[in-house]
């Protein structure tokens, strides 16, 4: 029987190795798999390359992972959110590298990585510093740059409901990067608030089919980053 349920977040992140590339779902706090990130902090893996649109806020979740100096390199589009105070310090100190990628290019690179497309051309960033040093090419009179697919050793994402096959549905704008990261992670683990029996999800409404998911962790009452930050919490 196929059963991708994993007993705990600790178990879900146990295999993460030093130097791994880890995609972490979420746009700001929406969709941030905080419990999995905290388990990753406990687990201790270092020198990670982390892919996320932002760099977390306060000193919980992704920001806490960065603060613990586990992240050698961030690949993101916007490392400057409100309350994002941890990343700037480490970035300026040269402890965390930054690869800045336009948000749509980041999404498309992840999607391409998951779809077996090694590279594609895009109009985004042409004429800007972010296109410097990249291959340019003209199609039908318009200039484009070559961008490469992005994959990861692990993808940690947050859903709303899943079944034991790893089919997932999401919650509103918490969906964001999760479905494409699920396709690009060699090992994708999703934390969900609810697990249902097979057939409990409408097959027409499944957003991430189970083939993209290797593990499902039940986190019935996930924390919200803004609430933790408002209470001044930090992790660990």
């Amino acid at each position, binding site marked *: 029987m196929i059963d991708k349920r994993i007993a705990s977040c600790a178990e879900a992140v146990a295999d993460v190795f030093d130097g791994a590339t880890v995609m972490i779902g979420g*746009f*700001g*706090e*929406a*969709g941030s798999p905080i419990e999995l990130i905290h388990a990753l902090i406990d687990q201790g893996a270092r020198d990670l390359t982390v892919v996320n*649109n932002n760099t977390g806020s306060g000193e919980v979740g992704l920001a806490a992972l960065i603060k613990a100096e586990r992240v050698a390199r961030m690949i993101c*589009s*916007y*490392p*400057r*959110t*409100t309350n994002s105070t941890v*990343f*700037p310090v480490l*970035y*300026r100190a040269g402890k965390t590298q*930054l690869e*800045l990628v*336009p*948000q*749509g*290019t*980041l*999404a*498309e690179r*992840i*999607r391409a990585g998951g779809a077996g497309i090694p590279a594609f051309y*895009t*109009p*985004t*960033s*042409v*004429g*800007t*510093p*972010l296109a410097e040093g990249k291959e340019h090419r003209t199609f039908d009179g318009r200039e484009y740059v070559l961008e490469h697919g992005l994959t990861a050793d692990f993808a940690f994402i947050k859903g709303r409901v899943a079944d034991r096959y790893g089919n997932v549905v*999401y*919650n*509103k*704008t*918490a*969906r*964001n*990067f*999760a*479905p*494409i990261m699920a396709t690009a992670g060699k090992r994708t683990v999703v934390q969900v608030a609810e697990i249902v029996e097979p057939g409990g999800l409408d097959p027409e409404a499944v*957003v991430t089919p189970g083939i993209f998911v290797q593990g499902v962790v039940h986190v019935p009452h996930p924390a*919200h*980053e*803004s*609430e933790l930050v408002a209470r001044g919490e930090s992790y660990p």
Partner: protein
Amino acid sequence: MSTEATGWSREEMARRVALDIPDGSYVNLGIGIPELVARYVPEGRELVYHTENGLLGMGPSPEEGGGEPELINAGKKRVTALPGAAYFHHADSFTMIRGGHLDLCVLGALQVAGNGDLANWSVGGPDAIPAVGGAMDLVAGVKAIYVVTQHVTKNGDPKLVEACTFPLTGRGIVDRVYTDLAVVDVTAEGFRLVELAPGVDEAYVRERTGAPLLPIREPQPQP
């Protein structure tokens, strides 16, 4: 330089932009003054708002203290979803943007050049944390790009310039600029004045513009 003219307030700038958006448009509004545009859409027009973090059919902000942490806009503020809304993932969201499916994007600016170049993401300082978000995708993909900005910086430097000195967001992509002083088109010949704010004269705008500014085009006689 002439004495300080009042021009349009932030709200009036937003209202002026809203006037120009046709019924039925699919629109992405940037952070700041662009966000205000939605409040001033004239009666009888229906626009559909896109937020690049995965929602089409975005509604107004919830009441103070209301809303949900996982229903937010690109500025990471809580929003609502209207009947007929749809959620989607980031690759699909930027398919809408890059694929030319959005009619209009309204953005802020650090500088706009007479050739339509836009700089709005970085002042390029050595110590700055660079952050671009979806701006480069929006200007590369959306059919029309409107910029809303004060005419000059807090230091009085012009934001409408001959050539941007800050790092570019995109090349030759701005269609129209709405400032506190005027509405200015970007044309093949450079900036052209379209409309002056009440109490503002052409000379006043010209003094505060860092590039040639063609005069308001005379209405063509109707045959």
